[in-house]
């Protein structure tokens, strides 16, 4: 048993660090650290920087422009990006559609779309969930009816993240009404400029905008935009949900969140002492640190297993559950540490001398509320427990 990285992996780690030192724009990492939204241009810029280095589509095979990393190198890369407060890449083209096209797309589809994802000409978004079909995705109702060499789509999608920046959307639609709910679903690609598509922003609990509703009214899409076989989109949906699980534990995020909350607790003063010296706060923090330390090893154990055996199993649901519990607990801790200073809505009036907390921490409450989503989206933690009970425990 050997828990350390190999010489090759350590060299790679240094390479990533050097790259981030040199290439990550400081104004971007400052925003990431403070939890404020990047502009669309900034996100595109970061994609461009990564693409120039060949490190953008980390899950793709080399023939399509991926770096050819295994799970451990991907993990190192993610860990270093988190440590440096690099922006997350936008996953919809890179980690979702890309792998789908590589596995299920025609050569033409691959040739047309993959390069456009890499060079940033396309920004994809996701049309999966519907108002009546969240965790129960198979019950989706958006209809696509064949009309000559087109489908005519009517219905509604929701929770479409960053749809406001996208020019294209991939959707699960119902192409057959009969049979089991999982049957009769198809996977189609749409240009958001197509007449009949309307995107409406959803304001979130903390006041931010990151998700949207998408309405489809008699939207005509060429049959050539079908990926895979008609009525067999459920296979793709399942494939995609399992691919979404890259970095599902979010260990890197939690590590930076922990170091940030430690820094905050040293700055905040209560009864004349740093909050970090308060035994009750320190106890909360230490327990999470220990859980995270264990999570790091759990994550590495499952990575090693994935490296050895290929596809990740139901066990990754554990990483989702415990990983989100830890991240949310860290957000909770940061919020608590701020005390009444967590209350203000972000405001220019409260900057400079009027600031209540260092700017890195001004979004503490907003981040806590926003990250309640972590245990809901991507298959809620309840769904993950159902999966584990069935597939890992045989219940």
């Amino acid at each position, binding site marked *: 048993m050997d828990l350390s990285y190999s010489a090759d992996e350590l060299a790679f780690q240094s390479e990533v660090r050097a790259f981030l030192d040199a290439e990550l724009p400081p104004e971007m990492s400052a925003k990431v650290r403070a939890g404020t939204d990047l502009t669309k241009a900034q996100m595109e810029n970061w994609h461009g920087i990564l693409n120039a280095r060949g490190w953008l589509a980390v899950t793709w095979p080399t023939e399509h422009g991926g770096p050819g990393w295994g799970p451990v190198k991907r993990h190192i890369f993610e860990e270093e990006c988190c440590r440096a407060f690099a922006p997350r890449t936008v996953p919809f083209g890179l980690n979702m559609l890309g792998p789908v096209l590589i596995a299920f797309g025609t050569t033409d589809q691959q040739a047309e779309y993959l390069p456009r994802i890499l060079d940033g000409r396309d920004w994809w978004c996701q049309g999966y*969930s519907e108002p009546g079909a*969240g965790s129960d995705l198979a019950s989706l109702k958006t209809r696509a009816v064949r009309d000559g060499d087109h489908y005519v789509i009517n219905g509604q999608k929701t929770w479409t993240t960053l749809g406001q920046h996208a020019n294209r959307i991939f959707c699960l639609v119902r192409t057959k009404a009969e049979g089991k709910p999982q049957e009769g679903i198809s996977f189609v690609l749409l240009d958001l400029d197509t007449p009949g598509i309307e995107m409406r922003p959803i*304001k979130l609990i*903390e006041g931010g905008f990151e998700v949207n509703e998408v309405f489809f009214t008699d939207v005509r899409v060429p049959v050539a935009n079908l990926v895979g076989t008609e009525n067999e989109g459920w296979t793709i949906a399942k494939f995609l949900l399992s691919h979404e699980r890259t970095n599902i534990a979010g260990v890197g995020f939690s590590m930076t969140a922990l170091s940030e909350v430690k820094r905050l607790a040293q700055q905040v003063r*209560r009864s004349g002492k740093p909050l970090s010296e308060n035994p009750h706060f320190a106890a909360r923090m230490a327990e999470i640190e220990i859980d995270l330390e264990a999570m790091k090893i759990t994550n590495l154990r499952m990575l090693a297993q994935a490296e050895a055996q290929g596809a990740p199993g139901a066990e990754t649901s554990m990483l989702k559950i415990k990983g989100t519990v830890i991240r949310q607990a860290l957000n909770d801790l940061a919020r608590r540490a701020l005390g009444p200073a967590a209350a*203000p*809505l972000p405001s220019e009036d409260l900057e400079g001398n009027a600031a*209540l907390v260092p700017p890195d921490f001004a979004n503490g409450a907003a981040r806590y509320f926003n990250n309640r989503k972590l245990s809901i989206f991507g298959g809620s933690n309840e769904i993950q427990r159902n999966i584990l009970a069935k597939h890992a425990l045989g219940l």
Partner: protein
Amino acid sequence: MDFSLTDDRRMLADTLARYLADQYPIEHRNTVAYAAPFHDPAKWAELAELGVIGALVPEAKGGFGGTGFDIAVVFEALGRALCPEPMLAALMGLTALSHTDQELDPIIAGETRIALATGELDAPYSSSDIATTATGDRLTGRKSVVYGGGVADTLLVTARHGAGIGLYQVAASDTQITPFGMVDGGGAAEVFLDNTPATRLLADAGPALAHAETAGIVALCAEAVGVMEVLKDQTLDYLKTRKQFGRAIGDFQVLQHRMVDLTIEIEQARSITIQAADSLGTPHGPRHASMAKNLIGRAGKLVSEEAIQLHGGIAMTWEYPVSHYAKRLIMIDHQLGDTDTHLERVIAG
């Protein structure tokens, strides 16, 4: 032992609840709670007219209430409506002023507004640990996150003088105030005092502040109970109507048991709030208030987080009222001492 409300209080509760249901629906609440001045001045006047402010003050001081249960009844109703009016500032200001010979009638009538400015950046929950100083009739320092401070005419400020900590009255117009809105709605302010003229009301602010703080905690706990009851009702309703996998999600045993655990904690929260209200003004008052605030902090976090989780994505949206109730419930833990602060006070005895 009698756990029913008196007729007067029942009437007050009903009147206030009806008024808020009619005049302060959640759409209106969200409109005024998040934009300056972060409350609705017209509604404030109407609440005063209804006697809501007077209910917080004993008869001897010009009101017609002022017990812990009067306060609890008012704030539970405000909590149910998620009302962002600066009633906590009024309660705490009036309670502190009741230790002086100041005239309270204009405040009770809603004509003038006060705010109690005690907390500071490095001493948000401690009234004795402050750095603001008085030199004669001039104050210098900064008071932080002063609830209702953005709309007050008069500020009641604590400051150190030679012999201890005094209570001072400062005209809002004489000082620099930076008002702001809060993530859970409603307004507060930063107050910057720089050789600001002030009138000393009390040389030893201690007893008045302790009383005001204990009353404020009872109010926040009762407000939290009101918020929790609404979250429970909304969540229960959602469990019964939302369908997934072909049945109401409330059919799933896991969600049933979690809903039960949440219900039990709400009952516990109500119980400990009743006790804190009962002992307001007695020697047990501060200890019972700390017990209540600690339990409310724990129960509030559970109820808020579970209400969101049991709903799923919909509760993450601004449009759905649960999100605002959930925010308010969490942020109550950031007022007048959090879960850990009050646990420490209980441990200290």
